[in-house]
């Protein structure tokens, strides 16, 4: 559908949050707690913070929770019953205040969870989630979205994109049918769009490296020493994968007490030794450098080749969360240097 422009006043946005809540939707927005900004349920607009570049954790948990029951089981004396997940129990949700990079991240997750085998739990969650993003008017040193073809005012992945015009007004771009539904339902809150130049309203994030210097060129360097070099200071925790908006790798575990049980899907990280360990004790990715290589190649080679979409959206969360300063942007620039040597 064609993108339709509207005007949303700040006061109307406040009203929208209330109305969405009244409408039975769970509204998630960035909330500042103990000096960290993360998505949390809000019942009123004032609970949301405006002071953030991106949240510490990504918004992926709304569609891909960190622990999710994928089926339930019941055991009786000589019978086992499996109970499918009740997809209708998944609540309607609204994500307010995601950044264009977060929204673009959902596209990557979708490419993983759809495909030959469609993961209906993910698909239903996404379908029931309306994403109202807010364009970035600021950025920090860890951001590199423009270098990976994501724009701080980009509409990809969002249902509605808000761009701040001034203190009291937002430009609302209605991107999808789902966004349109919200507008139709609460049409009194939206006004006719003014004529503004959106590009002048969003942050001008500099392009820091040439993506084409990486794409299609790192796979031949699979055995390069650069992976060892880069990952020497990596301590092998799973933080980068857990805060990443596009990391979709998961683990499946059964939890049972002998009468009832659940099969649960939870986040997993390629940074862990256990991720690929065989039961024989053999491990195809037995060192941290191999696991680091897997992470980079997955985002910049495997996902692009399989799904025709780049696996990184340049939000820089991994670099912010890393306790040993594994800065992804820096490593990519360093990688380009190595490739062009």
């Amino acid at each position: 559908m064609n993108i339709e422009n509207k005007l949303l006043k700040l006061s109307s946005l406040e009203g929208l949050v209330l109305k969405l809540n009244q409408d039975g939707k769970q509204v998630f927005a960035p909330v500042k707690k103990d000096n960290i900004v993360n998505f949390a349920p809000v019942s009123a607009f004032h609970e949301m913070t405006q002071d953030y570049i991106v949240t510490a954790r990504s918004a992926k948990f709304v569609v891909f929770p960190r622990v999710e029951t994928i089926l339930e089981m019941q055991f009786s004396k000589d019978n086992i019953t499996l109970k499918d997940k009740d997809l209708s129990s998944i609540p309607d949700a609204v994500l307010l205040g995601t950044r264009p990079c977060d929204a673009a991240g959902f596209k990557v997750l979708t490419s993983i969870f759809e495909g030959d085998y469609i993961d209906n739990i993910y698909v239903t969650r996404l379908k029931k989630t309306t994403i109202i993003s807010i364009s970035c008017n600021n950025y920090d040193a860890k951001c590199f979205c423009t270098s990976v073809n994501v724009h701080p005012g980009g509409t990809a992945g969002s249902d509605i994109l808000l761009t701040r015009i001034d203190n009291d007004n937002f430009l609302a771009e209605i991107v999808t049918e789902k966004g349109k539904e919200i507008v139709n339902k609460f049409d009194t809150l939206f006004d006719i769009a003014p004529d503004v130049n959106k590009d002048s309203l969003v942050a001008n994030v500099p392009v820091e490296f040439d993506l084409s210097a990486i794409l299609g060129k790192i796979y031949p360097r699979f055995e390069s020493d650069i992976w060892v070099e880069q990952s020497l200071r990596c301590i092998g925790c799973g933080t980068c994968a857990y805060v990443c908006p596009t990391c979709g790798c998961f683990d499946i575990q059964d939890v049972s007490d002998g009468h009832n049980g659940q099969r649960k899907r939870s986040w997993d990280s390629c940074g862990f030794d256990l991720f690929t360990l065989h039961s024989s004790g053999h491990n195809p990715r037995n060192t941290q450098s191999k696991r680091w290589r897997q992470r980079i190649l997955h985002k910049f080679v495997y996902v692009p080749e399989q799904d025709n979409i780049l696996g990184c959206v340049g939000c820089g969360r991994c670099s912010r969360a890393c306790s040993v300063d594994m800065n992804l942007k820096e490593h990519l620039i360093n990688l380009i240097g190595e490739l062009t040597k």
Partner: protein
Amino acid sequence: MDSIRKRARELLEKNTVKVVIGYGVGSDNTVRAIFVRRPEGVEELIFDETCVQNLAVYLLKNEIKQIGKLCIIANISALRTILQLASEHQIHEEELLCLSVTPNGELLEFTGFKDIENYISSCNRDLPDKESEMIKKLEKMSVDERWQFWMNHLSRCIKCYACRSACPMCYCTRCQVEYNQPQWITVEATLMGNFEWQITRTMHLAGRCVNCGECARACPEDIPINLLNYKTVLTVKEKYNISAGTNANIDSVMSSFESDDKENFIR
């Protein structure tokens, strides 16, 4: 700083060591670990009060051990870790060389664990003030308030195990949580699992923690898990008068005993 660079250069030029683990400038003016393998690389080394990371965590990392003999630029936490690791027979004197700088800028070179012990005995090993106060504050709370405090914090835990990875004393090749027969602690990051994981982590570090605070620094969710370790540090100190990381030839606190250990709760 110059003295460190000079000495590191000498060590690398003479091939006494193969790699110097030290601090360098990271992205956005932060400090991070660097691994210097060529003499000209020593210019990147820095050392000041912002160099807080406990670099001893790298001493047991395979890919670094493989490079050859190590030299580590150690702050007090790292020195204490080295002593504790030595007492647990994880590192040997001939495998590494330690450099450090005193608060007034004097270069120290330790030739053996005895040297480190002597230096450490004159250093301040107390818990940081902020954390000590926090522990006191928590102790004054009611049981319910404390429970609420920890539940609030632990509900954020995403089980990334950064606390485990960042801890230089968590060197097990296979962690208790990675065993699944029985599965003591759930793989998923659920609240009870998070709670049990922190109990496990703290108990396994009881009497071994050198209070470097690396666990809390690594936590992406800013959960003050170091307080748990610090609490056991205080308990061990009070009950058994032992501080970890002061002696390279000491039995582990939790696997030794005195026949007259004092307690007042056993009926």
